[in-house]
């Protein structure tokens, strides 16, 4: 039975009985079947494309992992905060205690050199004039008013105080763990966070013992910290793309400082929000624990060759703050893999752009590959399978530059402004096999991205301002 037999319009036009009638009917039937087949193929194609799109979109957001995608040895010990370079360089007592550290690094005294930081004369080079220094001071100096005079690595600051002020007497009861997490993330987003993740407190990521430079004494988690943290909320803020593209000029200091100020403000507000709900909470910056591993554990990104957390959408162009709290009735985020590890293996662009050669060209390892001398690698995290970089060399360039560097952030192919066409490249990055990543890096250079030490970038920054549209 053919379709046109049911169609009165067609049957009226056809003669009632003839050979041609049957032939025409068969022809229409064949056409109809062909059309149906075409439609089916087209429909299947659309469905396949849709399914592939959903799969790629999910992979771009990261593949959730049950375990941390950073291999850590069982005998790994938490890092003594006295071995954090920015604590050591601020502390006169630690400098006097460890003369071997100065000696092993070519008689380079970190404490004395750090005192000269940001005190050098203005220069005539683009990006190093009075204009850029003023911008940097405006971006960064507020931190000492908000966090304290000993840098972001020093614990128990002003907005990051350990005092549990304004703690509500009664605890708000969340209907579910999911809702608790969503509420915290909504609050952080309102305060200005671009990303927020929640993870369990992990003692391996916390400095132990802690060290207060102001009092030049150790602090104990059990004796000095006001409560036992169970959860860490990780908050991210964005650094400006155009400002970052001027690296290593003093303009980058301005956006780094500005993002830190925002991160501290958001963490302090989120901590106060939790205290008003009756849960103990402390805002922290680079003090107390390592931001990178916590951000990875909270599913916000993946560790890159340059030692930064590489995130979706922003790459390494983010700053991180944290909130330690005793609230544990929350749904924890899972860590995710974004394909960064395989990309960084091939890319090495940050290492090529590093003016101090601090970033390794080697693959990941359990210990530093640049030295095995304990008096030289005193700051290194041993027992973690990652890219080990020599932060002392990085620090030395900061002092020479009289400002932070950020070349490794600016040159990273993941560092792109928030324009939709870069999402196409993100898709390619997810879909393409790792062998193609090296080619993608070359294309990134060819297309003009990730240049550093470019005087034109300074002019562009002052001319255009923010890139948001």
């Amino acid at each position, binding site marked *: 039975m053919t379709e046109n037999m049911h169609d009165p319009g067609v049957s009226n036009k056809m003669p009632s009985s003839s050979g041609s009638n049957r032939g025409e009917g068969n022809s229409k039937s064949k056409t109809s079947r062909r059309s149906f087949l075409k439609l089916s193929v087209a429909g299947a194609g659309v469905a396949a494309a849709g399914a592939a799109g959903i799969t790629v979109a999910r992979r771009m957001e990261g593949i959730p992992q049950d375990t941390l995608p950073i291999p850590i040895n069982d005998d790994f010990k938490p890092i003594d905060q006295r071995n954090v370079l920015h604590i050591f360089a601020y502390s006169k007592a630690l400098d006097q205690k460890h003369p071997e550290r100065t000696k092993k690094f070519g008689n380079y005294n970190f404490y004395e050199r750090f005192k000269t930081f940001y005190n050098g004369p203005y220069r005539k080079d683009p990006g190093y004039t009075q204009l850029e220094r003023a911008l940097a001071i405006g971006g960064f100096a507020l931190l000492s008013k908000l966090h304290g005079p000993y840098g972001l690595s020093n614990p128990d600051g002003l907005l990051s105080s350990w005092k549990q002020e304004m703690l509500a007497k009664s605890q708000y009861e969340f209907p579910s763990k999911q809702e608790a997490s969503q509420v915290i993330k909504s609050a952080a987003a309102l305060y200005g966070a671009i990303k927020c993740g929640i993870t369990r407190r992990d003692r391996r990521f916390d400095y132990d013992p802690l060290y207060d430079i102001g009092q030049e004494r150790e602090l104990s988690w059990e004796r000095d910290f006001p409560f036992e943290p169970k959860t860490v909320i990780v908050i991210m803020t964005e650094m400006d*793309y*155009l400002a970052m593209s001027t690296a290593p000029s003093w303009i980058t200091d301005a956006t780094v400082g500005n993002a830190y100020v925002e991160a501290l403000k958001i963490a302090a507000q989120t901590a106060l929000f939790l205290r008003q709900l009756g849960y103990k909470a402390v805002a922290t910056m680079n003090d107390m624990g390592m931001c990178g591993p916590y951000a990875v554990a909270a599913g916000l990104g993946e560790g890159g060759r340059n030692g930064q957390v590489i995130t979706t959408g922003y790459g390494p162009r983010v700053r991180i703050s944290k909130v330690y709290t005793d609230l544990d009735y929350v749904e924890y985020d899972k860590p995710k893999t974004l394909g960064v590890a395989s990309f960084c293996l091939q890319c090495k662009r940050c290492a090529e752009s590093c003016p101090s050669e601090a970033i390794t060209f080697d693959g990941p390892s359990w210990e530093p590959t640049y030295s095995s001398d304990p008096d030289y690698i005193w700051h290194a995290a041993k027992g973690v399978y990652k890219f080990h970089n020599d932060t002392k060399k990085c620090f030395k360039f900061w002092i020479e530059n009289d400002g932070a560097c950020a070349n490794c952030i600016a040159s990273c192919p993941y560092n792109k*402004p928030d*324009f*939709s*066409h*870069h999402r*196409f490249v993100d898709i390619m990055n997810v879909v393409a096999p790792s062998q193609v990543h090296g080619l993608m890096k070359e294309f990134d250079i*060819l*297309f*003009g*991205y990730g240049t550093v030490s470019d005087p034109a970038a300074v002019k*562009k920054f002052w001319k*255009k301002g923010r*890139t948001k*549209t």
Partner: protein
Amino acid sequence: MMELMWYVVGFLAGVSGYLVYMLSRKYNLGVIGLGSLIIGLFLILFTVAWSVGSVLEGVPRAASMGIVFFAMPGIVLLTFTAKRFLTPRYRKT
């Protein structure tokens, strides 16, 4: 400006869809002809989105490289389709 760009690209995508429909009705394009026509048009539209975005973000070099790497293959494919399939020989009777 990005919103305007997406509006224009959306309009051009609609026009392209209509063009594909009309040409496939008039000509026996087959899988190769239809495929090269659709991919060619997609590459041209992609180039518009890429290049306008690159200029707006202040990286004109990316815009020009985008034209070389995306628009050129698109033009080649569309030329191939026009020369090979959009001829009286392939016209439907």
